[in-house]
């Protein structure tokens, strides 16, 4: 849904020379010691720019070391529509992406400990076709939610997605109700379901599992929204304000419980999850 083009504008890659000791913040251009940049989990404490993380980095940052066992590691993308577009076949493109990233789909799910507490964690990965929501993604979320219910663990999801993956057409669209039906079961089981919205959380993902969390935590400045900015501007024939569809905008409009800089995420989650008494 109009999000891939977005990739170029929003996520300037990091200008860094391997042996360089410095990192230049893509947003405010500040020069930051590489060490400090890593310590701050690739965020800029001057302008709070948050660089995208891989799912592996996300898991490492949230869970206790060596506490993570992946669920459904072999579940991979499928090609229900035998989709071919101007750039060739979806199956090939996905296979390529898979080899390049080592990922089998746009999400990894598993069970691990967060400061000692067992949780089910699902983490999307923008590198796999923009973190787009497709059959495999929805299925892994559903299976993870079922695992949470079986073990009675809280379920935490980290959204990072350009929306539904067009290449799987209607199957991708159906992952929206499918994941929401799974979240409804979590609610029935009175299990905590925390949604962490990172940059970007858009389209079909914002309009499904990401937006029905008990508690919504957004990373600063994350782009969170349903319709594409350009589509909206064409519709209303006006420029949108700078902060439109940012985490801060959603906080002001009532859709996000809190904005937590990345370094504070793990402790905040630990804090919140202690409040479950059912």
């Amino acid at each position, binding site marked *: 849904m109009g999000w891939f083009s977005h990739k170029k504008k929003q996520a300037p890659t990091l200008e860094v020379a391997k042996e360089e000791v410095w990192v230049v913040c893509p947003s405010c251009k500040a020069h930051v010691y590489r060490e400090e940049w890593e310590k701050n989990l690739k965020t800029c404490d001057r302008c709070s720019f948050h660089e995208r993380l891989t799912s592996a980095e996300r898991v490492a940052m949230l869970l206790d070391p060596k506490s993570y066992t992946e669920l459904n590691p072999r579940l991979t993308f*499928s090609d229900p529509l035998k989709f071919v577009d101007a750039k060739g076949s979806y199956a090939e493109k996905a296979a390529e992406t898979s080899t390049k990233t080592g990922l089998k789909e746009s999400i990894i799910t598993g069970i691990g400990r967060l400061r000692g507490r067992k949780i089910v964690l699902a983490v999307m990965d923008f590198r796999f076709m923009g973190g787009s929501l497709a059959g495999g993604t929805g299925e892994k979320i559903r299976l993870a939610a079922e695992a949470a219910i079986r073990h009675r663990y809280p379920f935490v999801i980290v959204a990072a997605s350009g929306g539904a993956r067009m290449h799987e057409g*209607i199957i991708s669209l*159906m992952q929206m109700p*499918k994941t929401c039906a799974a979240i409804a079961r979590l609610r029935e089981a009175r299990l905590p379901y925390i949604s962490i919205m990172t940059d970007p959380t858009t389209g079909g993902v914002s*309009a499904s599992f990401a937006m*029905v969390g008990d508690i919504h935590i957004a990373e600063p400045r994350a782009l969170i929204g349903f*319709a594409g900015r350009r589509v909206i501007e064409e519709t209303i024939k006006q420029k949108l304000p700078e902060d439109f569809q940012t985490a801060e905008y959603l906080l002001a409009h009532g859709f996000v419980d809190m904005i937590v800089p990345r370094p504070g995420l793990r402790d905040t989650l630990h804090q919140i999850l202690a409040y479950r008494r059912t």
Partner: protein
Amino acid sequence: MNLDFETPVTEIETQLLELKAVADPDAATRATIAELEKQREAKLKALYASLTPWQTVQVARHPERPMLRDFIAGLTVEFVELHGDRLFGDDQGIIGGLATLKNQQRVMILGHQKGKNIEENLRCNFGMARPEGYRKALRLMKLAEKYGLPVLSFIDTPGAFPGADAEERGQAEAIARNMMEMAVLKTPVVVLITGEGGSGGAIGIGVGDVILMLQYAVYSVISPEGCASILWRDGSKAPEAANALKITAPSLKQLKIIDGIIPEPLGGAHRDYPAIMQTVGNLLGKTLKSLVGVSAGKLVSRRYNKFAAMGRAS
């Protein structure tokens, strides 16, 4: 009003018009008229027997295609419209209310409402609903659950309204919440895609026990134009995108997304309202009868399994 690809038919129809305009036509003229009518029907049959997906999109978007209020007029003996979301407003892009079908079955009907002219379209925003429309729909569904009424959800929208106000008031939340609540609604839900199944805007009221689709309706994650402009870098490649996206009823039936295809009269529903009403009415009656006896628990678990199966690596 005929579609571009129906030009062969249009030509015959223009001739027929001229001939029929003759005051008292002689035998020869009458014979030509009969012949032309036979040709017209054959042409129409041929065209509609091999519609391309992109042609199907044109039929699905036909301005005279029956819209929700037409279905309500054609299928019910009583409709009590209910307004408002009890929170912010009364969106005209989605309407709904209590209704009694011709077979006396009482239901809650809701769905997208498009306009037949510019004035109506401005009022109902071309069938593109805002959050308050989805929240009204949810209120009516919960009311149906309380009264023990089955829900009939009619889908015909280009998509959820992509406006700044809609975004501001939580279009994403409204759609997500609807799907979650519909997934566990303790009453039968029958979904009927009649025209355009516009992505999130459609699935926002599209979770049900039985999903039916009119023969020439379409249902897609993105419009062919939108997909073409991104994956083909060229909006004019919409026909190719339409092919690739598998958005027609036969494809969706094959992909197990829908449960039934409702045949349309020759040349599409817009050419014969009474016929489509008859077909839809019968099928709805049967479908409801099959669901009404089922316990709420069984309905909900079957619904979960139905959507769970969509996209499981078969």
